[in-house]
């Protein structure tokens, strides 16, 4: 029984089943919105379907235990397949280099002429040998092609291994802020200072590039500087730093009777709790650089230029929303005796810092896979030999993967020789 299971796990049939299940799982994972809440699934589907989605982890297909299990089975299958095939492949490669002793299956033909043009038409250079005092011409090509599928499997194995290990061990941090801010990078002890952030706009207001100048400082006080832009990350203290995204930020001032209580930069999407009254929270929802109110649609911006800056905010007291409105630049609202003002709109930058120790392995795997595919598809192993007989020559040709095209080429080469 154990032997049967072992055989099945290393079989091509199992590989095909796994590939099909993986394809179906990937397709399913792309159709079902990932990472949503139960309520969102209920609103999209039904309550029963939503429960099923969560129970089967279809809300996070690509990180679910069963998807990982499929990946593990695939790795196991590839490993077993390669281990089991290693010895036979070595033997086959050796055998290809040696001339067959007796009759072998393959294509055959007879000719009275010198067979050299057939070898040449098949792209082969024969070596003359002697067998049982009979003159034999033997040629073999693309022996490495035998290893194509094996190399390809090895590449995929390394790729999955590199990806999996990278996913399990990678460190990732995001830091966002405006120029001048010094921000901690997670629990690394590093701190990142944003020295400058520029959004280069074209004449038509479209973005040409986002560029941030940053300084990363380690706990020992050593610093490394870098310039980050989209498609041009920098590596600082072993962390890959990416200019990931951007948004609007503004300075928020809270005063009471003219005295400043709080003064800080708030990014759109963030909330600010009043220090003196923690139940009171201000949320900065969105920023409109060139504000316009479109009837029936709501607030919008006419351009990306700071022609008429306005801020969409809401105020909350505990669980209760007190109100939501748009505030012009510098305009104040009063709540509970506090005055709140938004000003100095500017772009903030979101920087992603990442360390993946195994991405090189995934890259090696990908390159090995490509090499394997080239070997498998374009180095088709073939051998051709000719035995001298009393009437002329007997030709033999073999190509395990050549099929009808190899046969046609061989037959055509023989035909051409006969017609010469």
């Amino acid at each position, binding site marked *: 029984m154990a032997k049967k299971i072992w055989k099945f796990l290393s079989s091509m049939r199992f590989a*095909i089943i796994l590939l099909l299940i993986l394809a179906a799982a990937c397709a399913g994972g792309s159709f079902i919105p990932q990472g949503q809440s139960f309520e969102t699934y209920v609103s999209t589907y039904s309550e029963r379907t939503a429960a099923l989605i969560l129970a089967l982890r279809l809300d996070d297909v690509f990180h679910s235990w069963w998807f990982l299990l499929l990946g593990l089975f695939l790795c196991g299958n590839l490993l077993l397949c390669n281990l089991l095939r290693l010895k036979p492949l070595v033997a086959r490669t050796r055998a290809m280099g040696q001339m067959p002793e007796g009759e072998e299956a393959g294509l055959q033909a007879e000719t009275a002429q010198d067979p050299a043009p057939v070898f040449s038409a098949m792209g082969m250079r024969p070596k003359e040998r002697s067998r049982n005092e009979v003159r034999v011409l033997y040629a073999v090509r693309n022996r490495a092609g035998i290893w194509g599928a094996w190399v390809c499997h090895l590449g995929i194995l390394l790729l999955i291994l590199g990806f999996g290990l990278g996913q399990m061990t990678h460190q990732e941090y995001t830091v966002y802020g405006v120029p001048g801010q010094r921000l901690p990078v997670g629990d690394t002890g590093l701190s990142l200072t944003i020295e400058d952030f520029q959004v280069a706009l074209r004449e038509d207001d479209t*973005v040409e*590039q986002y560029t941030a100048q940053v300084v990363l400082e380690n706990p020992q006080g050593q610093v490394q500087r870098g310039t980050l832009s989209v498609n041009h990350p920098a590596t600082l203290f072993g962390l890959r730093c990416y200019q990931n995204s951007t948004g609007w930020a503004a300075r928020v001032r809270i005063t009471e009777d003219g005295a400043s209580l709080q003064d800080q930069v708030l990014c759109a999407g963030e909330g600010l709790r009043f220090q003196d009254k923690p139940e009171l929270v201000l949320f900065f929802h969105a920023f409109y650089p060139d504000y316009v109110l479109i009837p029936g649609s709501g607030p919008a911006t006419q351009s990306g230029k700071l022609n008429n800056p306005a801020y969409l905010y809401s105020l909350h007291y505990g669980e209760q929303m007190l109100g939501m409105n748009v505030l012009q630049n510098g305009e104040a609202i009063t709540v509970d005796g506090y005055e709140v003002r938004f000003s100095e709109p500017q772009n903030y930058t979101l920087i992603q810092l990442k360390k993946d120790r195994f991405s090189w392995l995934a890259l090696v795997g990908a390159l090995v896979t490509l090499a394997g595919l080239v070997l498998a598809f374009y180095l088709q192993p073939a051998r051709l030999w000719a035995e001298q007989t009393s009437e002329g020559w007997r030709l033999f040709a073999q190509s395990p993967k050549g099929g009808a095209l190899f046969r046609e080429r061989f037959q055509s080469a023989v035909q051409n020789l006969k017609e010469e």
Partner: protein
Amino acid sequence: MQQLENILFTAVMLLYLAAMLLYFFYVALKREGIAKLAVILQIVGLTLHTASLILRGIAAGRLPLTNQYEFASCFAWGLCLVSLIFQFRFRFPVLGALAAPVVFLIIGYAAMQSREIHALMPALQSSWLGIHVSTAIIAYGSFGVSFVLSLLFLLRGRVRSGSFWDSRIPDSEKLDMISYRSVCLGLLFLTFTIVTGAIWAERAWGSYWSWDPKETWSLVTWLIYAVYLHLRIRRGWRGKSAAILAAVGFICVIFTYIGVNTFLPGIHSYA
């Protein structure tokens, strides 16, 4: 320059349409001369198509590979090129009779897209763009040819021995082999597309694989063709079953290209 490109594009559409109609006449009237004329029109169309793409590249100041119109146009160009290569390499014009309608459908889809030239967003300003998308064009073109060959394989079974078509359509074994070769070419280039895309994604988005719908469906396509290759090795799966699977693979290709953009927006939404 854009006006000239538009004129050329219209001429290309008409030439591809004419070639397609001539192929249909060839099928109906069974005259070799008509097939030759269709091939000539296809070659002229491909030449003008190349010129129109070059003009667009000059007008945009970049490779014309970044939006639905440009990619569809390049997809049709790649399919036309690969089908002509296979037609000449394996000497059978019937391939053109089935490839021409697919080429015309894709160029027709391109004609329905916006032809406006937009400046590239920061993520697309990379030298990887040319390598990534051009390999995808060859891959998609090759899969298109394998799809056509699979259809031809399925039709081959209905051709009577000794008929006009019997001598003009290669035998089933050869069709299966050529289809296999075009899948091999497609899979190699699709792998190249996925690998170059991953390298580029790491630089642009900070992650070489993020299960974005386009990435995921490229992987689904890759898996389907991997299954095709494995099944062909198994006894009894060559021929009809393999032809059907190759056709399913091409449906995945089309879904990856059009379906994903229409139904599953992600970080590839501009493509």
